[in-house]
């Protein structure tokens, strides 16, 4: 079982970024459900699929990864994983996939419902397991699957040839969606969406970069919640507005010397990997109780896309963390560590994500060496609560803290 029960908290200020972002994240589901009820076609969409395409076409889409995270965070991960395992899926498969495949069968989850899809939009720039996961959904529901293939890039930069390869697929995806849904692509609307997505992304990245201040004006775990809007709604006007509010709040926090990290910030770490959603409170509390603030994570920044035109969009989607080569991914993290005065790295060895967990031991070793900071890792899972041990997590975090304390000269 994951965590149980939450403390009751006062309702947030409706003008706050937290309230606005929470409302946008929830509205993404209700908008899709209402569209479905009106008889419109809705899709399921991979988190790193170019959201600009369905947004420009005026199509409503839901995000299975986002739904799975929500279900897991609210305690339904084990139940849903068991359903798909009963269908024959191995427990070695990504727990987001298992939850999503279970939802396709069960068609309901009290933690987070969403309408069943009329089409699925897949992009493998984040993982390749997703291809089979989406293929199974498409096959079982007898609906079309549109796949954009963005292979892992072994080179440091994205080449023009790669952009051409991706651009042709983007147009093919657009034309397939036009044919299937009857919606029409509009260059004018695309420019609006692109500009809005850029506004959201700039504000988001600027907001996350406020952790450069000591103490940080925010608790890094906030980002894990707020990023849901960057995944699902970055092309929407209200998302850009909410992200700009978030940035304003963080700047004000810094000026006033306050923070959403409700403890004395004694240590600053980078968190590596997807959040351990079923144990979010335990993992957060294990840090906060020791004065450790997770000030940065590539996972949050990954959903900020800044580009100027269609080609730039293709390039941006080829340059996401799980599709870029190790040296490039390492250098981005080193920059985050240096810009945000990071003193240690905590790596989530995520049983669900073989790709991320596979390259991380070597990459984190290189980052730790380059920055002269300690690295600790813990076993867990982004959505299956059975792959986490609280006592083991606690020992590793304490060990990391004791090294960081020693590095400050506090213990010899």
């Amino acid at each position: 079982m994951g965590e149980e029960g939450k403390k009751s908290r006062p309702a947030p200020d409706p003008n706050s970024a937290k309230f606005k972002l929470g409302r946008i994240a929830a509205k993404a589901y209700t908008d899709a459900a209402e569209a479905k009820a009106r008889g419109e076609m809705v899709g399921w969409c991979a988190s790193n699929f170019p959201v600009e395409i369905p947004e420009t076409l005026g199509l409503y889409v839901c995000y299975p990864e986002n739904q799975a995270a929500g279900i897991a965070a609210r305690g339904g991960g084990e139940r849903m994983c068991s359903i798909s395992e009963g269908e024959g899926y191995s427990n070695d498969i990504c727990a987001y996939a298992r939850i999503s495949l279970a939802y396709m069968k069960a068609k309901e989850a009290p933690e987070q419902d969403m309408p069943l899809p009329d089409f699925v939009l897949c992009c493998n720039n984040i993982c390749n397991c997703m291809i089979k996961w989406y293929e199974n959904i498409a096959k079982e529901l007898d609906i079309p699957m549109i796949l954009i293939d963005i292979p892992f890039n072994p080179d440091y930069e994205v080449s023009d040839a790669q952009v051409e390869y991706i651009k042709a697929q983007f147009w093919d995806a657009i034309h397939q969606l036009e044919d299937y849904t009857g919606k029409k692509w509009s260059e004018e609307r695309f420019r609006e969406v692109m500009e809005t997505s850029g506004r959201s992304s700039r504000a988001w990245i600027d907001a996350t970069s406020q952790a450069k201040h000591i103490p940080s004006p925010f608790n890094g775990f906030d980002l894990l919640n707020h990023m849901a809007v960057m995944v699902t709604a970055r092309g929407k006007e209200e998302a850009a507005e909410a992200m700009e509010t978030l940035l304003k709040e963080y700047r004000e926090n810094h000026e006033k010397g306050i923070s959403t990290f409700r403890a004395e910030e004694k240590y600053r770490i980078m968190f590596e990997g997807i959040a351990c959603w079923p144990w979010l409170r335990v993992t957060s509390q294990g840090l906060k109780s020791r004065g450790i603030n997770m000030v940065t994570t590539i996972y949050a920044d990954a959903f900020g896309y800044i580009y100027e035109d269609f080609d730039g969009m293709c390039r941006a989607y080829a340059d996401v963390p799980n599709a870029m080569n190790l040296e490039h991914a390492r250098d981005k993290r080193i920059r985050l560590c240096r810009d945000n005065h990071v003193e240690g790295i905590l790596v989530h060895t995520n049983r669900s994500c073989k790709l991320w967990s596979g390259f991380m031991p070597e990459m984190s070793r290189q980052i730790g060496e380059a920055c002269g900071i300690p690295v600790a890792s813990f076993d867990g899972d982004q959505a299956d609560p059975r792959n986490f041990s609280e006592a083991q997590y606690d020992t590793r975090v304490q060990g990391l803290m004791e090294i960081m304390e020693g590095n400050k000269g506090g213990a010899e």
Partner: protein
Amino acid sequence: MYTLGIDIGSATSKCILLRDGKKIAGSSVVAAGTGTDGPEQALKMVLEAAGADRKDILYVIATGYGRKKFQGADGEMSELSCHARGVHFVFPDVRTVIDIGGQDAKVLALNEKGRMMNFAMNDKCAAGTGRFLEVMAGILKMDISELEREAEKSADPASISSTCTVFAESEVISQLSAGTALPDLVAGICQSVAVRAAALARRVGVREAVCMSGGVAKNAGVRTAMEKELGVKILFSDMAQLMGALGASLYAYDAVRDRETSVQ
């Protein structure tokens, strides 16, 4: 002046009573860990061994998995830092500590001052830990302390390839029924533990001198297999199982000294 270190593990409770930060006045090991009366028993035994009284102890540091549940502690530290400190006290030249306990395996990198600079721990799996050896000894109907003598007789250790304790259990049973000699089987089991811990050690980086601590270090079969696997000499002390408690007692001494300094 006495300080106490108590290491409450998953399978055992260990105490070290330290006098003036230098001399070990008493030690105790009780084969009952967190969630039992093992910690209290270990405390009682160490006081008796040293002829001391509870009120003579100025500071107590608890470590190990049960460190947060022990009521009588003034502070707690991870077993990682405590093992590093304890080993450094006994072997100042050690730079790599391989600590295999009841339910986990750790490798610690130490600097020249004995401070832990990096570490790696086993994943959420009992293979390569003391529990693995206990289970295997159980199948072979042996006491765990008999494993090393049996392993010494082996010329050709059997291969135990399963990475999971449950699957390895089936593998050992299959090898038993296939007629594999007991010494070879036991040596293979020890080797299997060593191979897993050695992989962790390589991840951290093996710098000599290398020392093994924790309960499993008492098993010469595992130590020998580790030496072969890593190609380095493994230092060992009879106090291997007590290194965490020793480190905790040293940190407790530091706390008393810091307190006295701040009062002055």
